[in-house]
């Protein structure tokens, strides 16, 4: 490790780079924190050593003859060119080796697939490019987004310790309990992977896959989306916090309360009017977090994939249409429905922002009540 690190410093190419605080990388698969992950690790090491031994034998013989049976030593080549006995032998031995590998593999696989009798069930939904978690036993659900600031990614600020592996709201699970994950997706295929649990399962749109984990150690575990899911596939981390059952219980209650409170606030908001400054500042924040990935920070989109909002007819003229597409998305395109993801306030703010930023100077304000009206079908 140290050798390669010093090597990096010696590179002229470093001129380009921002300061990098490299943490040490493990050289092997993690043992993880579940019984299953431990089994997977053992399996991995078993096959690995078997391959090493076979390799050592085969390459050993090969290098031996490279050294000994070279023309430069004046040897006469032998002329043999078959031997049924040997050939049968070296067909049979690998078969036996494979059987030895297959037995523990089969056992582990069957254990992994048994999702019955779970204590907690979480519905995990991937969408471009965030995860949504919904606890099926409580009223708790939320989105989980990358928390690394853009400035770190474009090398303007120094990168933090958990660069690209941090989220705004992590998933929380209890220790010592069997947690069942139900995976699905709203758009393309994603894959939910936490190495420490040895869980990697594809989230297929329209279908639900199952996986499970029983974590014994409280702690923070990080993972990433593991299926190419479009532009920001690399920016879709997973963070799971395992808490003792009591702490977990407390957290669930707190969450439920928070969500209920937000709903109540929402109602109050309908009667209030926000100022342009407030709308614009909330709007900008929301836009950067939720919309800029596709429509770009400058509102110009990526021609051919994501339309520009700057100068868009919808964003300049048709208010109800604008609200509608943000609320409900457009099926069959990457444009998602945000009614579920954002509060009324945020939606109102982001729409106001889109109608007044980057030269879209309509001067119009959109209030939470307007959004609510469209939601109730009274927009026209």
């Amino acid at each position, binding site marked *: 490790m140290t050798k390669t690190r010093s*090597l*990096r410093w010696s590179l002229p190419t470093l001129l380009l780079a921002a300061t990098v605080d490299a943490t040490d990388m493990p*050289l092997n698969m993690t043992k993880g924190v579940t019984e299953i992950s431990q089994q997977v690790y053992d399996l991995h090491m078993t*096959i690995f050593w078997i391959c090493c031994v076979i390799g050592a034998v085969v*390459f050993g013989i090969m290098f031996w003859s490279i050294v000994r*049976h*070279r023309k430069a030593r004046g040897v006469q080549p032998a*002329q043999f*060119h078959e031997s049924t006995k040997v050939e049968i032998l070296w067909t049979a031995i690998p078969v036996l080796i494979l059987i030895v590998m297959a037995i523990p593999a089969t056992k582990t696989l069957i254990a992994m697939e048994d999702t019955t009798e779970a204590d907690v069930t979480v519905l995990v939904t991937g969408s471009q490019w965030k995860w949504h978690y919904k606890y099926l036993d409580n009223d708790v659900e939320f989105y989980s987004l990358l928390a690394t600031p853009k400035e770190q990614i474009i090398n303007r600020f120094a990168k933090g310790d958990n660069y690209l592996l941090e989220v705004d709201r992590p998933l929380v699970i209890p220790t010592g309990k069997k947690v069942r994950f139900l995976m699905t997706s709203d758009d393309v295929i994603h894959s939910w992977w936490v190495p420490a649990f040895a869980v990697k399962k594809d989230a297929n749109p329209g279908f639900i896959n199952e996986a499970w984990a029983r974590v014994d150690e409280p702690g923070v575990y990080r993972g990433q989306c593991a299926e190419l899911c479009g532009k*920001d596939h690399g920016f879709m981390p997973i963070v799971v916090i395992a808490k003792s059952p009591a702490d977990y219980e407390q957290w669930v209650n707190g969450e439920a309360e928070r969500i209920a409170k937000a709903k109540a606030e929402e109602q109050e908001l309908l009667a209030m009017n926000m100022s342009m400054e407030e709308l614009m500042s909330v709007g900008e924040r929301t836009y950067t977090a939720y919309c800029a990935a596709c429509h770009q920070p400058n509102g110009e989109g990526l021609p051919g994939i994501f339309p520009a909002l700057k100068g868009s007819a919808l964003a300049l003229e048709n208010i109800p249409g604008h609200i509608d597409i943000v609320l409900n998305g457009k099926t069959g395109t990457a444009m998602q429905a945000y009614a579920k993801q954002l509060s009324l306030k945020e939606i109102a703010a982001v729409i106001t922002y889109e109608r007044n930023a980057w030269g879209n100077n309509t001067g119009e304000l959109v209030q939470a009540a307007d959004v609510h009206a469209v939601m109730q079908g009274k927009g026209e």
Partner: protein
Amino acid sequence: MSAVVTDHEHEHHDHKPAGIKRWLYTTNHKDIGTMYLVFALIMFFIGGAMAMVIRAELFQPGMQFVEPNFFNQMTTVHGLIMVFGAVMPAFTGLANWMIPMMIGAPDMALPRMNNWSFWILPFAFLILLMSLFMPGGGPSFGWTFYAPLSTTYSGDSTALFVFSVHIMGISSIMGAINVIVTIFNLRAPGMTWMKMPLFVWTWLITAFLLIMVMPVLAGVVTMVLTDKYFGTSFFDAAGGGDPVLFQHIFWFFGHPEVYIMILPAFGIVSSIVPTFARKPLFGYASMVYATSSIALLSFLVWAHHMFTTGMPVAGALFFMYCTMLIAVPTGVKVFNWVATMWRGAMTFEVPMMFALAFIVLFTIGGFSGLMLAITPADFQYHDTYFVVAHFHYVLVTGAVFSIIAAAYYWLPKWTGHMYDEKLGQWHFWCSLISVNMLFFPMHFVGLAGMPRRIPDYALQFADFNAFISIGGFLFGASQLIFVWVLVKCARGGKKATAQVWEGAEGLEWEVPSPAPYHTFETPPVIK
């Protein structure tokens, strides 16, 4: 010797048409072989340049040179170009040059179609490369173009991608038909099945695989096209389809496809090792049977790419066992090569060096393949750099090394000159060292948890990625030596004898070097 065309006996004796028309209108297997090889080399450089973009961006964490969307286009097109534009055409070029010479045929069986198979390829890749310049960019959904990322969520270039894949498919199918028919029908008298050189055997089986799976690829891209543009829902649950259906059809093609890229390599190594060990190939018959079993098994293992898609346990077990079984016939091959060297009298010219490197490094790639086959472990490896390490070992130090070995081995036969041995050795050692710097650390990066197809990564992976990138640049630069050797050899050099290598045996070594424009105008007799 009598001539190829009736009544034109002497006119056609080694008479090459001149000018550009020679290449555009040609029906000569050697010309077409040359064009395939040159095309493949150009594509290797274009695909390689894209890999350099990938490595440059991954040199450091953070986004430096390209946008994520462009990065995805680079990985996608890099994969497509290397697979369909570099490796496959290179093998087809070798088949064109060598198969007729090895079996004593006057040319390929269907010479005009042969020309057509070649010439549609540059157009297919022209379309693919042009799509990069469309608004929204080229294909960015990986060379495996999983739906619905490639359907509902893809850019406008998807249609161009689909049609260019159709054309590549047509080209491969026609090329494969030509190879099969040539081998079935044009063998010289006495060239019985079990006397055919292994390169011919492996290509025969490869051609069979091509005919079986390329149409399936055509089918699946067609479904992508209709899903995106014509409202069908093959890969959409709301309409009763399934995104995973895409993966089944794709990998039914995709897995045999990877063997399409390695079986001819086995043939090449099986030609080179006996030559430089001065000893007959060990276990000829078992080589033939092993190749056939690999081909047949390859139809039963496709879902090992899909262990995480949520297939039922019984399915996963079936595919795991079948995949593991492939190690057996492949092992037979490796053991046979080693046994061929055993008690030979070896020399180590450049082709042999690449062949030896092939044996070791391909086997390492095979071992990691075997690890990937173990389903529970694959859950940890899947879609990480461990997989990237695996397939670059089998593809770069496997397929590409074998192609380079073949080029050195047969260059004197093609050009009539010996290549520069010293430069060749430089090329070998530079490539060997840099390629391992490039791909070996990827195993560790993958095990430590770095997903593939990401333009930016967590800080812990920084050191290794920097090292890998340096290896990549060095490996790329090393290939410039190769071009130098090729150009030098084409222009001149020590005259090559007919046999070229002391230990070489086979029909191709009995005709003069360079091989005459029309090799066998009457069938030679093999006793």
